[in-house]
């Protein structure tokens, strides 16, 4: 009885806000429902929406863009994250301040961050182009430029997430016993060797964890794109979630949007499974 009472609110939430929407999302994804017609008149159209996810040019571009984002974002944030974590792990004066500083972008909302960066990256009155002009470079119009817009989105996302990634890696580093390094020092190992033979292998569970999380987050990029570029110029920064939002809530194409969101789920699920498989093969768990 007590069990039931304690569990009831969570159970209701699970049913009403997770299970019920999930099941109806599957049905909606096979229909052409536009929100205006009645529930009872829902009309099913088979796999058409799913075919459309890959055939519709905007939808296909958004999937492609997310992979472009990944290619730019993942290697840089991972390497930079390891570097930051190693440096932040050093016991020097003022380290508390430095650790606090990297975290400020993480706690701020994407909306506020995006608006500030729209200003910094502005072609005329932006600080970035001013700084570039000091060294004689004429900066592009970043967010309005077909090629530079995605670069800017990737760079700003790295700027915002680096604190998060490095703090998680730092926690992993702090779990590594000092003994390994002391033994290595006795053997006269170089810093480079210590990094590759001790730090990276023993950090690998944390590394896999943060890479998986970062991958999942990358597939869900939305806020920064909507605020900074609105998916433009000409769809150059449009993402899957941005398309889901637009199709569902601006064009009332509920069925299409639901199908896109399930494709997103399948992508995320597959990536997670692949990471799990890789993890079993490569990660060192012995301590």
């Amino acid at each position, binding site marked *: 009885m007590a069990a039931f009472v304690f569990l009831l609110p969570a159970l209701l939430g699970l049913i009403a806000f997770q299970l*019920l929407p999930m099941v109806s999302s599957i049905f909606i994804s096979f229909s052409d429902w536009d929100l205006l017609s009645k529930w009872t008149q829902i009309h099913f159209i088979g796999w058409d929406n799913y075919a459309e996810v890959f055939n519709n040019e905007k939808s296909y571009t958004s999937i492609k863009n997310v992979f472009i984002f990944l290619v730019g974002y993942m290697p840089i944030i991972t390497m930079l994250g390891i570097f930051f974590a190693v440096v932040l792990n050093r016991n020097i004066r003022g380290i508390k301040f430095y650790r606090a500083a990297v975290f400020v972008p993480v706690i701020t909302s994407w909306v506020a961050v995006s608006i500030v*960066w729209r200003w910094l990256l502005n072609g005329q*009155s932006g600080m970035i182009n001013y700084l570039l002009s000091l060294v004689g470079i004429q900066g592009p119009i970043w967010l309005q430029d077909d090629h530079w817009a995605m670069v800017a989105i990737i760079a700003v996302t790295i700027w915002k997430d680096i604190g998060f990634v490095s703090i998680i890696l730092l926690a992993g580093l702090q779990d590594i016993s000092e003994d390994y390094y002391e033994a290595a020092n006795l053997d006269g190992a170089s810093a480079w060797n210590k990094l590759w033979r001790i730090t990276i292998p023993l950090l690998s569970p944390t590394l896999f964890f943060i890479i998986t999380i970062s991958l999942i987050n990358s597939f869900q990029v939305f*806020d920064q794109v909507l605020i900074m570029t609105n998916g433009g110029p000409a769809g150059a920064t449009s993402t899957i979630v941005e398309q889901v939002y637009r199709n569902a809530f601006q064009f009332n194409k509920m069925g299409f949007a639901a199908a896109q969101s399930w494709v997103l789920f399948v992508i995320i699920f597959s990536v997670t499974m692949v990471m799990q498989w890789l993890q079993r093969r490569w990660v060192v768990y012995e301590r």
Partner: protein
Amino acid sequence: MRDKNTIIKNGLTHLFLIADSVVLVFPFIWMLSGGFKDSLEVVKMPPQLLPSHWNFDNFRQIEKFFPVYRFLLNSVGVAIVTTFLQLLICAMAAYVFAKISFKGRHAVFIVFLTTMMIPAQVTLVPLFILFSQTNLIDTYAGLILPGIFSAYGTFLLRQNIMTIPNELLEAAFMDGASYYRVFWKVILPLIKPTLAALIIFAFMSSWNSFLWPLIATNSKELMTLPLGLSKLQGKWSTEWNLLMAGNVISFVPIFVVYLFAQRYFIKGMTMTGIK
């Protein structure tokens, strides 16, 4: 020789850390300074680091067009209510999953864990439909409800409650305590550190949340700060001083919370792996 190396190494470390702090923190200083500049000074080239005159007028001017202080109150209210309810619901369920067994508990728990895998976007469309059918769109309840259930929170608290020895609970039951009493007087006090981290974490997620409020509200009176700021930008796309003033209003509260509860922010994120 070794000392000299250490000095060089420490010097390089400091240099790098100062450089990265500047890159990461400067945009916020620029935002604060921009929020107090007038409309001419804010676009002046070469840029001026601090306003020549600290101009509070921006904060009055945005209020003429947007009820930003109403947005602020909405954000505070929604974040506090969401955090409180989420923690309560999670902790109650976690107590059952950890310590009160019944037939089928394991199956229910597995279903809970599975929902952690589903990205929020999948349930977005039906959730919106559900809320519009039940007239919850454009209400505070509609804004708050989806945020008060967290499979992650339940999972983490369950792991924590599992570490409480059963003898402790049995001793309380022997003294005639009810399940409710044990929950309030034994369980909750023992999981305080995890609760604190989750509180901070839930508060921040709610404070910064954008996509759901964007969908769930239409009228200005109900908007939270991130949504309000995006509307501000829709009206003044390049009035940087006004936009920065709006940003300052949304940044300062969470920054102050961060200053006082820094370790819980970090603990919350390293625990959950979500930001």
